[in-house]
C-alpha cells in the first residue's frame, strides 16, 4: 500500500547505503495511543523529504525514533545504513538534529554553544575552531558570537539551532518544523540554508506544517496522518494524483456551498472547504453539468494544500 520505493535489504552497515534512511512497519505506542502506527518511509540519499502532517500525526515521534531517543515497539529502522537503535551511535555521529523545541544552552554564548557541539560530535581538535567559525557564518551570527543565547532574537536562535546541527558537516539532517513561528523573511533565509544543504548532497528529512515550505524545498513529500504515511510522491505528482490539475473555487454563503458540494458529489468529484469557499477538485474532468451549474466558480491550478486538506481533513496555516 505505501507508495514508497523498494526496501533496501542489502544496505552495507558502513554508512554507504543509497538510502539516507528507511523505516519499515514501525510502530510506537504510548500506552493505548499508537503515535506511529505501521510507518513505512524511505528517504533517498541526497534528497529532501518533506513530512507533512497535522498536529499529533507522529512527525516528532518519528524523528526521535531515528536518533534512538525513542525505541520502536515493532518494525525496523535503518539510518545511513546503520540499524537503529543497535548502531544508532554511529548513525548519530553523521547526522544533525534540529528539534522542534529549542534546547540551546541559553546561558552560554553563541560560540560556546557551537564549541560544545563540536566536541560532542568528536571533531578533531585541529578542525574545531574552523568548524565553529563556519557554523557562525552559516547562522549569520559571526558578529554576535559572544552574545549570550538568552539575548538573541527568536530568528537568530533558530538559525543557531540549525547551525549547531551542521557544525560537523552531517550527511543527514533532521529538521522538525524548522520555521514555525518565524517571520517570512527569516523563513526565506532558512529555506536558502536548506537549499544549500541539498546542493551539497546532504540528505534532509524535514517535517512541516507549511505546505508552501514542502512545495518549495522537498523532492518528495510524505503526508502523514495518525502515525502512518497516507500519500507519497513529488509535490507535483501528489497534487495531480489527488487533486487533478485544476480546481473550481466558489465563494458564497453556507447554503450555496452546500449546493456546490452536492453538484460535485453527484459528478463524483472530491471537494474541500476553506472558510467561506468550497473547492471542487479534479475540475479538468468535470462534466458540463458541473461547470454549467457553477457559473460563479473561479478556476485555479490545484495545489499541494488541496491534497493535504483533502487527505487529512485539516486546515493549514
Amino acid at each position: 500500500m505505501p507508495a514508497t520505493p523498494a526496501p533496501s535489504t542489502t544496505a552495507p552497515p558502513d554508512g554507504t547505503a543509497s538510502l539516507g534512511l528507511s523505516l519499515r512497519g514501525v510502530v510506537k505506542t504510548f500506552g493505548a495511543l499508537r503515535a506511529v502506527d505501521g510507518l513505512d518511509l524511505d528517504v533517498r540519499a541526497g534528497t529532501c523529504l518533506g513530512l507533512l502532517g497535522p498536529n499529533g500525526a507522529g512527525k516528532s515521534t518519528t524523528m526521535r525514533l531515528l536518533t534512538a531517543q525513542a525505541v520502536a515497539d515493532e518494525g525496523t529502522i535503518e539510518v545511513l545504513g546503520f540499524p537503529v537503535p543497535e548502531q544508532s551511535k554511529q548513525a548519530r555521529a553523521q547526522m544533525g538534529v534540529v528539534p522542534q523545541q529549542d534546547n540551546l544552552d541559553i546561558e552560554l554564548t553563541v560560540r560556546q554553544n557551537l564549541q560544545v557541539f563540536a566536541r560532542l560530535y568528536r571533531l578533531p581538535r585541529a578542525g574545531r575552531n574552523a568548524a565553529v567559525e563556519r557554523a557562525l557564518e552559516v547562522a549569520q551570527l559571526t558578529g554576535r558570537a559572544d552574545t549570550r543565547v538568552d539575548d538573541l532574537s527568536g530568528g537568530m536562535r533558530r538559525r543557531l539551532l540549525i547551525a549547531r546541527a551542521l557544525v560537523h558537516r552531517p550527511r543527514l539532517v533532521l529538521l522538525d518544523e524548522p520555521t514555525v513561528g518565524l517571520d517570512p523573511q527569516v523563513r526565506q533565509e532558512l529555506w536558502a540554508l536548506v537549499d544549500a544543504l541539498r546542493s551539497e548532497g546532504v540528505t534532509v528529512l524535514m517535517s512541516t506544517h507549511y505546505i508552501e515550505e514542502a512545495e518549495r524545498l522537498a523532492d518528495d513529500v510524505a503526508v502523514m496522518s495518525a502515525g502512518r504515511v497516507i500519500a507519497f510522491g513529488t509535490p507535483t505528482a501528489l497534487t495531480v494524483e489527488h487533486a487533478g490539475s485544476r480546481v473550481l473555487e466558489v465563494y458564497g454563503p453556507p447554503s450555496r456551498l452546500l449546493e456546490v458540494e452536492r453538484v460535485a458529489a453527484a459528478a463524483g468529484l472530491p471537494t474541500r472547504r476553506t472558510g467561506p469557499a468550497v473547492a471542487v477538485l479534479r475540475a479538468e474532468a468535470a462534466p458540463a453539468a458541473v461547470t454549467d451549474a457553477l457559473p460563479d466558480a473561479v478556476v485555479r491550478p490545484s495545489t499541494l494544500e488541496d491534497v493535504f486538506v483533502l487527505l487529512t481533513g485539516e486546515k493549514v496555516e
Partner: protein
Amino acid sequence: MSAPVSSRTAPSRLRRIEPAALGAVVFREATMFRRYWRSTTFSSVVEPTIYLLAFGFGFGSLVARVAGYDYIDFVGTGIVATAVLFGSAFPGMFGTFIKRVFQKTYDAVLATPVDTEELVAAEALWIALRSGVLGVVPMLVAIAFGLQPSWGMLLVPLIGALTGFGFAAFGIWVSGIVPSIDSFGYVISAVVTPLFLVAGTFFPIDGLPGWASTAALLNPLYHCVELVRSAVFGFSLLTDLGHVAALAVFGVVMWLLAVRRLRARLVL
C-alpha cells in the same frame, strides 16, 4: 511516563564508554561553571564551614578529646565528608533535574553520538571532581583553627572525588525518580540528613546503640570520614582498602541505577 522499562528501552548490551564523549559533556559543564563558580562554590563551602565552627567551638568546649583525637582534629577532618556530600548530592539532584526537565539539555546531547551511560558518567565525574576540591575548603579552615597540616592531606581531594562520584550518581538517580523538583525535600530530610549526621563526622558512631553503629557501616559517608582521618593521621592499610572498596562499590551501583533510571526517562 513510568511505563514498564523492559521492552521499551534501548537494548542494554555493553557499549564502550568513549572518553571523548565524557570529555565533551564535561567541557559543557566546565564552560557553564565558569559563569557560576562563585555562587555554586559559596553555598557548598560556607555551610560545612558553619557546621565546623558551630561544632568545633560549641561542642569542642564541652569535650576536649573524642575517640583519641582533639575535637578540632576530629571534626575538622570529618567535615570534609559533609562538604563532599553537599557538593555532590545536591548538584546531582537539582542540576540534573533542571537540565533534563526544564532545559532539555539531555535531549540535545543524546541526539549526538553520546549515550546515556556516558552522559551519566560524565555528569557524575564532573560533580565528583568539583566536590573533591570543594571538600578540602573546610579542612583548610580547620587548619586555621589548629588542625596540623600533613602530607596525607594531598590525598583528600581524591577521597572526596571518589565519594562525590557515588553521591552525584545517587542524586542523578533520585532526579530520575521524583515527580517534581519539590519532592527533593523528602529525600533530603529522610536520606541525606541522616547520612550526614550519622557518619562519624561530629561524634564517633561506636557510641551509638549496637544496631545503629552497624547500620552506620552501610553509610558510604562513614567510609569517607574514616579515609580522610587515615589520610591525615596515618593509614592502616587493610581497613582503609576496605573503605576504598566500599566507596567504589557504592559509586558503581549508583551509576548503574542512575543510568537505568535516566534512560527510562530520556528514551521514550
